[in-house]
């Protein structure tokens, strides 16, 4: 198999893993202001307590893998989206600190401050991720060398902003569905309401984004015309979405959460299908950065493939172990946040 394609797929898998896993803890952060009462907030925070850090590693590894496999894309996107990327980095710093430090003092002001910072950093990080993905898929102005030619203001295109909103609402829904697995009692009732609210907003936004994609970003459909079988995926995403409401309505939280994971996986696949074979789509006359232009040497792709083959089963093992150890409802103990 073509190594460039293999790496495109592998990066897609890493991104998918990140979106599914960190998606729910970012979502928990976005929902955080809705949680009332300190015990409730601690329960919610501790539901992601042991997991968020490992979830973020998917992003770090995605970054490293992009750097090594497609350095041109890594350099163009990160330097091109300079201030937004810095904003994400500062948000991720703020988020980690808020989670870690919130419980370290009883003071109301202290906790209130970190609660707000946790919420805001989760919101900003998710929004900027979405907007960035929207821009990469929707197309940005590139120079002939494949560097970013636009300005900061050019990143606020309607399609990209809509994808940003979709990310925020999707994360909120995913987070609420995750919390359903983790909390009990009256809090679970609230969570269920939020899940429904976010669900309807998410379905609506999916329609908006699909509409914008069809009308404003025609190049997204090239691969659909080339391989009509890709049309199966939007249908599957629709089914997974419907299955979320079924799980919610019938009181099957695990089914709803897994359907949400499947939805996110499907949407990531759609984004990748729209991109392929490009990594950064050019909206100017210059050619896009595709998986051949942006790539490292074949030798390095092969080498990194070996590293991934050794590493990914280990990663899957650790992830599974940790999720297994911390399965079930959250209980607060002396080690909790």
């Amino acid at each position, binding site marked *: 198999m073509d190594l460039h394609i293999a790496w495109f797929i592998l990066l897609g898998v890493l991104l998918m893993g990140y979106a599914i896993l960190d998606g729910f803890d970012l979502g928990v952060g976005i929902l955080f202001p809705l949680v009332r009462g300190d015990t409730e907030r601690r329960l919610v925070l501790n539901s992601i*307590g*042991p997991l968020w*850090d*490992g979830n*973020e*590693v998917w*992003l*770090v*590894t995605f*970054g*490293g*893998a992009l*750097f*090594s*496999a*497609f*350095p*041109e894309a*890594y*350099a*163009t996107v*990160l*330097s091109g989206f*300079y*201030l937004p*990327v*810095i904003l994400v*980095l*500062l948000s*991720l*710093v703020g*988020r*980690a*600190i808020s989670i*870690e*430090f919130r419980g*370290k*003092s009883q003071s109301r002001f202290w906790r209130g401050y970190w609660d707000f910072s946790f919420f805001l950093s989760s919101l900003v990080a998710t929004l900027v991720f979405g907007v960035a993905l929207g821009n990469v898929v929707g197309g940005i102005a590139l120079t002939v*060398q494949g*560097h*970013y030619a636009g300005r*900061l203001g050019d990143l606020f295109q309607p399609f990209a902003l809509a994808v940003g909103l979709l990310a925020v609402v999707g994360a909120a829904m995913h987070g609420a569905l995750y919390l359903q697995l983790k909390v009990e009692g009256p809090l679970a009732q609230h969570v269920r309401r939020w899940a429904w609210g976010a669900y309807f907003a998410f379905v609506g936004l999916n329609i908006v984004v699909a509409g914008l994609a069809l009308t404003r970003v025609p190049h997204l459909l090239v691969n659909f015309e080339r391989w009509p079988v890709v049309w199966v995926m939007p249908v599957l995403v629709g089914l997974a979405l419907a299955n979320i409401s079924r799980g919610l309505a019938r009181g099957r939280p695990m089914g709803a959460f897994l359907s949400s994971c499947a939805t996110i996986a499907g949407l990531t696949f759609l984004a990748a299908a729209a991109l392929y074979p490009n990594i950064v789509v050019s909206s100017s006359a210059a050619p896009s950065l595709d998986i051949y232009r942006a790539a*490292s*040497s074949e*030798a*390095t792709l092969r*080498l*990194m493939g070996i*590293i991934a083959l050794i*590493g*990914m089963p*280990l*990663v899957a093992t650790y*992830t599974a*172990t*940790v999720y297994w*150890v*911390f399965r079930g409802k959250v209980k607060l*103990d002396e*080690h909790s946040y």
Partner: protein
Amino acid sequence: MDLDLVELSRAQFALTVMFHYLFPPLSIGLGLLMVVMEGLYLRTGNPQYEAMTRFWTRIFAVNFAVGVASGITMEFQFGTNWAAYSRFVGDVFGSALAAEGIFAFFLESGFLAVLVFGWNRVGPRMHFFATTMVFLGSCFSAVWIVIANSWQHTPAGFHLVEHQGVLRAEITDFWAMVFNPSAMHRLGHVMLGAFILGAFFVMSISAWYLLKRRHEDFARRSFLIALTVGALASWGELVSGHSQARAVAHNQPAKLAAFEGHFVTAEQGAEQGTELWVLGWPNVEQQRVDYGIGIPGMLSYLVYDDFDRPLPALDQFPPEDRPPVVVPFVSYHVMVALGMAFIGMTSLALVLWWRGVLFRQRWLLWLFVVAVVGPYIANQTGWVAAEVGRQPWVVYGLLRTSDGVSALVPPEQVLVSLVAFSGVYLALLAVWLYVVNEKIRHGPPEPAAASTSSTGSTSTTGLVAAAAAAGVGRGGHSYTDTADEVAARSSAALAMEDDG
């Protein structure tokens, strides 16, 4: 005001990486001590060791979180501010970075969850396994990042290829890249530096408890474990530093000349060895070291085992390839001086321990309380010397720092991000200090058995009973040992302490 993009980008990288490097070495060093402590707990069943592991784990967790948060910034900053560099090295450097993510970060973060939150969810052996894996993960992380960084100093296992009309480095030999000439020297030096920091950190807090007569049994045991590790690592660092300096002399002679303030090469055939400056201040304009105390020929001896063979000085290199001198000289000398101080302090403490009077030396305990800043400074200055000494190259001999920058990012934006990072990191440091201080004030948990020998009033019978209870009555943490065995060990431990 004219903003210089390269200088701003360098300032930001320096700020973010120096801030980041406050945390990982403590994670590595403290991680090692936690493995030792929990290992002792598994072997002896003494609940004090469990209390120790729990306490240091709490501080470890806070430290680790800030390390992760500031580390994410590093992972992406190559792309944001050093796009040309990223394009040039992605094939090589990116690979090491990706390997770090796959092999180190997942291991660390996965088992960190079990280490910090898993006390009541997994058995003691699994918990110990998790602690060990977190430590291993942090070591792997150091391995890959030091390999990547060392490649910038001594590039190997690559060739230059034109890609998209621009030259870039591509791997030809993975293992030659991994074992590039400086990688293993530097890795050893970095790891030992981290162990020294972990040891001095634990000794500082333990010494403070001893001075305040709080948690004395806890503090004594923690101190002695840390002292043992700290002394070994300090002596090891001397050996490692020596071999590393010789490697620098061979690989990056201009850098060693900058470290040592060696401006002018001796005339050929003069049989005049190169001086080693113990103290001094380099005067770049006059090309000499002011206020210097030097040992004639010593540098030649250390590098070549020959007092009379001169080293090449900065004048052997074209002006545009010379590193700055003042910063590498000063930071290098500060690091070396601190390293000697660590050897002195730990050796003295070992002698006093051997003579059984260590914990009566209040002045020395106070010295250890404040000495924790020493390894922090030494770790930082060591890296400053190494990286500033590499200038003007970002990849030694291949790519200049000024050519590696993201040329298209407006300098104003870099200024904005630099100010933002400064503000956030300053606040973060303050909060980190506050939280760690709270944890220290709060103190360690009481060991599962009633407080042991710390007050001296607990009768041996009471202790035995308590320790026995601890051995059998702790649910998830119980052992298959019989109560008697536990009791025997506890009293043996108590007897040993009384000797001290």
